[in-house]
């Protein structure tokens, strides 16, 4: 079997692909080829030699496009050169691990030549498609803010029909560091920890002040020396971050290493500290304990460390990281008292269960949010008429209902994290419907709607046996009392805060459908009163009109 693995993302993703590539390359019947962008080729140094690496000449293609008016033709010629080279290999299988639009068109071109494909590709009419369930799962659930809790390295392995054991995650051979780098390491008299000061994305980086505070804390509370790593662009950040005290224990390698050198540097360290970036994944490969700083822009479950020992410090924003906690965590990692897992909130635990229910068939979660019951019931009530509408798709009334249903599904996903898992799964299943005659598409769509109904009914049945609510928040009526009281007594700041909180925790009560027009007209009146600074009137509207409206809605629900 001759397989081309397409990995056109950046350094970190290439390293996340290593366990899959290495395991594939050990299979006797496999000839593994890998396609990466030339800019990121250095992340392939150290892979087994029997993996054949091809590069996308992205730099020369871009230069051609930018060089003159119709540079696209020249770029296409360069690209054709690569395609001819790849097509001549006559690959049996394409494993697209890039999950991007460009790679999906590229995969499609191999599919047209008869290769089996896994990963994002295109339907025969050019629309996005995925044949395999793992890619459908990826499309539906993977990414920051999404529900996925499987590590990306495992998802990639799953796509190659592999299962990664612990030993598959780590490598036993890695490139040696260049001599100047090794000399610096040799000159360090004590054990050292490595601190990656940068990040590929500014939203995921620590500030120089934070880095300095963390370094000071480590110098004070531990006996380790500290080696700073990062690209040449991050040298200035490292300079700004270095404290003046204790500098003899700080070794700055930023801008002095090539990417493959970092394997050796990190492997010799007691521990690596860093944000979501390539060194974290290199540490996982050489199995160095890792302290990962993470924030809401990152899904730690899918791109966090995978060393035998790691800890993820999760905060909403990286600026919230408390430097005083770092030394204890580093000592815990070095002394094996820290376990390797990403700590879940109650909500994340439920979402994880929900994912397993929908995709793996485990029992459904019976602890739900108050909003979940409402949207679940509403969706189940609506589904028979939606299915009927799909039987007569040309009818304007049917079209209107189908459009309302699409909007409702979106609002369910926005307002309820458990329903979001189901809505995203449903959307991915609809995308997989291939082009065809109206009746064929109709039949397949009805099949997907049927599946949605089975899933929801099954869940509702299990909830009927026993249900608990996760949100311990006060009843909306009590919350509304607080808002009204603040406005009556002109505690405006508190009033606005309570109102925001009331609106976000009770968004399901304002969702489309029943009483939505009344709610919308009332909302305008309240906004008008607040705009006019007429807080007494706002309090009246909230206390009398909104309470009456929501009580009616509660009764209907």
């Amino acid at each position, binding site marked *: 079997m001759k397989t081309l693995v397409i990995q056109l993302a950046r350094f970190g993703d290439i390293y996340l692909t290593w366990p899959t590539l290495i395991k594939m390359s050990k299979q006797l019947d496999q000839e593994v080829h890998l396609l990466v*962008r030339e800019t990121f080729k250095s992340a392939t140094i150290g892979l087994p030699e029997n993996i054949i690496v091809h590069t996308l000449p*992205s730099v020369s293609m871009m230069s051609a496009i930018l060089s003159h008016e119709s540079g696209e033709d020249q770029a296409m010629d360069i*690209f054709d050169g690569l395609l001819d080279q790849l097509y001549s290999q006559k690959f049996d299988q394409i494993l697209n691990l890039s999950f*991007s639009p460009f790679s999906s068109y590229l995969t499609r071109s191999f599919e047209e030549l008869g290769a089996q494909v896994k990963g994002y590709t295109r339907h*025969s009419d*050019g629309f996005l498609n995925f044949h395999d369930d793992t890619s459908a799962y990826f499309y539906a659930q993977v990414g920051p803010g999404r529900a996925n809790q499987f590590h990306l390295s495992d998802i990639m392995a799953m796509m190659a029909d592999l299962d990664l054991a612990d030993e598959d995650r780590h490598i036993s051979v890695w490139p040696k560091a260049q001599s100047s780098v090794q000399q610096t390491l040799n000159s360090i008299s004590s054990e050292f920890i490595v601190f990656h000061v940068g990040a*590929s*994305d500014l939203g995921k980086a620590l500030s120089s002040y934070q880095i300095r505070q963390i370094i000071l804390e480590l110098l004070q509370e531990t006996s380790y020396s500290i080696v700073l790593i990062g690209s040449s662009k991050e040298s200035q950040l490292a300079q700004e971050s270095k404290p003046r005290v204790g500098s003899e224990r700080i070794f700055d390698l930023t801008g002095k290493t090539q990417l493959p050198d970092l394997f050796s540097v990190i492997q010799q360290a007691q521990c690596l500290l860093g944000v979501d970036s390539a060194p974290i994944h290199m540490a996982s490969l050489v199995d160095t304990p890792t302290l990962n700083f993470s924030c809401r822009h990152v899904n730690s479950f899918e791109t966090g460390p995978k060393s035998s020992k790691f800890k993820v410090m999760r905060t909403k924003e990286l600026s919230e990281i408390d430097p005083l906690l770092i030394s204890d965590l580093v000592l815990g990692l070095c002394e094996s008292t820290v376990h390797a897992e990403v700590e879940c909130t109650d909500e994340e635990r439920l979402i994880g269960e929900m994912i397993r229910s929908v995709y793996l068939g485990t029992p459904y979660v019976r602890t739900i949010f108050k909003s979940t019951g409402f949207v679940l019931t509403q969706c189940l009530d609506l589904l028979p008429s939606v299915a009927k509408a799909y039987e007569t798709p040309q009818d304007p009334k049917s079209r209107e209902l189908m459009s309302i249903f699409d909007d409702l599904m979106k609002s369910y996903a926005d307002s309820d994290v458990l329903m979001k898992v189901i809505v995203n799964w449903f959307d991915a299943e609809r995308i997989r419907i291939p082009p065809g005659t109206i009746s064929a598409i109709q039949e397949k769509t009805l099949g997907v709607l049927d599946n949605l109904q089975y899933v929801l009914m099954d869940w509702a049945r299990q909830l009927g046996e026993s249900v608990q609510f996760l949100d311990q928040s006060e009843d909306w009526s009590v919350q509304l009392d607080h808002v009204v009281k603040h406005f009556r007594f002109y505690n405006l700041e508190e009033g606005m805060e309570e109102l925001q909180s009331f609106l976000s925790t009770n968004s399901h009560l304002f969702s489309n459908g029943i009483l939505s027009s009344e709610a919308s007209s009332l909302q305008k009146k309240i906004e008008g009163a607040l705009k006019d600074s007429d807080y007494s009137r706002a309090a009246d509207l909230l206390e009398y009109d909104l309470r009456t409206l929501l009580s009616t809605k509660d009764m209907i629900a």
Partner: protein
Amino acid sequence: MKTEKKLQTAIQRLEQSAQKIIDTRGYSSEPNKLKMLAEFIKEQLRNEDSRYSTRPIR
């Protein structure tokens, strides 16, 4: 800024050419290749610009 405008124009030209072929002859390897190049440029704008993470393009 000038570079970005040039790239946007190139993307637009490639997408229009692809659409013209699709409208007349249906979807085939030719528009697939044009779309591929258009998407390559779009991704390149993000992928090799270190201000962005790769994640959003997935």
